[in-house]
């Protein structure tokens, strides 16, 4: 007998029929990705955790509005994006006092390697839009088309943000020999 893993659209359909356990499985599949996306945007683990809970709560409440279950990922990250930027707008004065927002990412569970510090420094040089584009593309593995859904902007805008961010990062990171840090 061949056992097939339950796909996200199946779990979504069962959740819509009121099966809370199905949504729990869905959350367990996506929570780490959403948390890491948020922690790299807001730079604080506690805030990212609170926001993650809010994201999944809002997703549950609005799951009925999701037309195409196959697009759950971009739809979920769209909610996370909105939550993150609402949070950043509320905390704007505090954030602006920081010269390198991404530098605040350091905390328990992070690598103490020199390369990791250099990466955090380099990410801190990017604008918020560019940093989010890199997080979605490099760390979350979304395609440009999916990122356009998450960010609610044209694919061309997504592409230009990623390319511009790579140019900035390349200037900082390309000279680093990462092999020595492994």
């Amino acid at each position, binding site marked *: 007998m061949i056992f097939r893993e339950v796909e996200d659209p199946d779990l979504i359909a069962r959740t819509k029929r009121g099966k*809370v356990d199905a949504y*729990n499985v869905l*959350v367990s599949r996506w929570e780490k990705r959403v*948390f890491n996306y948020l922690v790299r945007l807001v730079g604080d683990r506690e805030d990212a955790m609170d926001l*993650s809970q809010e994201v*999944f*709560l809002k997703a549950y409440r609005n799951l009925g509005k999701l037309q195409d279950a196959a697009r759950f990922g971009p739809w979920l990250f769209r909610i996370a994006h909105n939550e993150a930027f609402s949070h950043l707008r509320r905390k704007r004065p505090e954030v602006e006092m920081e010269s390198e927002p991404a530098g605040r990412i350091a905390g328990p569970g992070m690598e103490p390697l020199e*390369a990791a510090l250099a990466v*955090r420094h380099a990410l801190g040089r990017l604008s918020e839009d560019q940093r989010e584009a890199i997080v979605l593309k490099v760390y979350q593995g979304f395609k440009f088309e999916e990122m356009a859904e998450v960010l609610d902007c044209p694919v061309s805008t997504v592409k230009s943000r990623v390319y511009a961010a790579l140019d900035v990062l390349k200037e900082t990171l390309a000279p680093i020999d990462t092999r020595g840090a492994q």
Partner: protein
Amino acid sequence: MNCPQQDLKGYLLGELAEAERRQVADHLSGCSGCSEEMARLRLTTAALGQLHEQEIPCRIAFVSDRIFEPKGWNRLWNSAPRLGFASAVILAAAILVHALVRPGPTAAEVAAMEARIQREVASRVQADLIPVMEEIQYLQKRAAVSYRNSLYLENRP
């Protein structure tokens, strides 16, 4: 210096269609400037890979009370007094149904019942009142005798 018409970043990020991807790959094999640029881009993404994913501090407790707590009527139904309340309702319903469904007595039954009551009352009267009446008559006789005797003593010379 790389060739601006070559989409090296799209190639690196896997965003090119198959035909375009092959074209860039062919170009890279013969262009030192683009190869050098591609090496720097690969070094950049490799460096980004040094920042690993963080473990989530705890499982997300999305099952909030606001969403999943039972509704008001459901909470009442599942509360401790539920059994008592349900029992009282069932008992009241049973009494009501019994009162509505039970047939009333016929005229003959009523007459028989009244006759039985009268017989019962008469027998009770006979059993209880007659001894009392006899006691009263006995006391009256004694009182009359005593009165006659007292007159006799008073009139005696």
